[in-house]
């Protein structure tokens, strides 16, 4: 029961990631792509933690935490670059 | 005094994070984590000064709990608002940037206020300059600063003023 519901939840999350990826590819401006990248970073972090649950290996939770940290720094660095402050 | 409070709070925060990371707890890990947290928090360049703005009186603690619930309520309401606007066939938006004012002075209070505004229904903080806060509002209801402040800031400010001046 719980596994089925969680599988459906993960499938819906992947669909949301695909929609954000469509905006990332379509643009039309760099700032739109960066907003899409921000959303994709958060969704991917959650998906990595979900993968830890599927594979049963706790190390992937740590991978997700580090990915969230690095993704945040990357998005802020891109935003600062677009602003002209870097 | 203020820096000592900041360092003790930073030490506690580090220790709580350590305890959450080492999920099946054991006594040795707790002691080792406490020693390392003390050493790190009292390093000369450790950036703990932000936490020194926090007040710790009984009234401030009550307001902290109340602020937590106000924040959760605002977060859920803002998501329902986003769901309504995104799924509505006509996209009912009327965006603009309005200026509001805040009385908060401390860096921690201003950080929490900016984050709270971003997560409340229909608003995103764009810029903070002195006491002026510029807010992107997805459906502008009031353009003059006074009524916009009343609508966006006041609900959080009365809690944040008590928590961290």
């Amino acid at each position, binding site marked *: 029961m719980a596994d089925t519901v969680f599988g459906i939840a993960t499938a819906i999350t992947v669909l949301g990631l695909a929609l954000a990826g469509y905006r990332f590819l379509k643009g039309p401006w760099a700032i739109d792509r960066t907003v899409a990248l921000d959303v994709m970073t958060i969704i991917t972090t959650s998906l990595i*933690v979900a993968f830890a649950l599927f594979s049963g290996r706790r190390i992937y939770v740590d991978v997700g935490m580090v990915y969230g940290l690095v993704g945040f720094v990357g998005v*802020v660095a891109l935003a600062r670059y677009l602003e002209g402050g870097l | 005094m203020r820096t000592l409070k900041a360092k003790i709070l930073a030490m506690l925060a580090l220790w709580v994070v350590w305890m959450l990371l080492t999920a099946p707890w054991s006594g040795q890990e707790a002691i080792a984590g406490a020693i390392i947290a003390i050493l790190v928090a009292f390093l000369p360049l450790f950036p703990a000064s932000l936490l020194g703005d926090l007040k710790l009186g009984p009234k401030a603690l009550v307001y902290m709990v109340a602020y937590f619930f106000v924040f959760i309520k605002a977060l859920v309401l803002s998501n329902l608002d986003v769901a309504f606007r995104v799924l509505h066939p006509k996209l009912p938006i009327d965006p603009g940037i309005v200026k509001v004012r805040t009385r908060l002075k401390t860096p921690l209070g201003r950080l929490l206020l900016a984050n709270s505004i971003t997560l409340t229904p229909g608003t995103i903080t764009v810029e903070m300059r002195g006491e002026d806060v510029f807010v992107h509002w997805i459906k502008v209801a009031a353009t003059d600063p006074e009524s916009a402040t009343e609508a966006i800031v006041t609900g959080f400010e009365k809690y944040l003023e008590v928590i961290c001046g």
Partner: protein
Amino acid sequence: MTAIIGAFLSLIGALFFLLSGIGLIRMPDAFNRMQAGTKATTLGSILFLIGIGLQKPEYLGRTIILVVFIVLTNPVSSNALARAAHGYRKHIGARLEPDALAEADEAAEVASKTTANKEAVHGD
């Protein structure tokens, strides 16, 4: 029992992730995309990660750290993006009916120009 509650929490969170994706597609300019993206992903990741923590209690500590981190940093990155987007507001064709920030920028520019002129006149 907690596993089933956790799975349903994750399902609600996943629906908010989907909502953020739809918002990114449907909204007309970068500011409004940010509105949909930031809010929906914040609540979505809170529910999704806490749901995972409830399904497997040994992950709960780490997912709580991750949730606190996301709640603190997601508004910060969207604030940085909003400031960057305001610099490009004419290029991206953002409709901003009252634009108080542009007015404040213009006022500051005019003020600095007049003081510069006065100094120039003084210099002569």
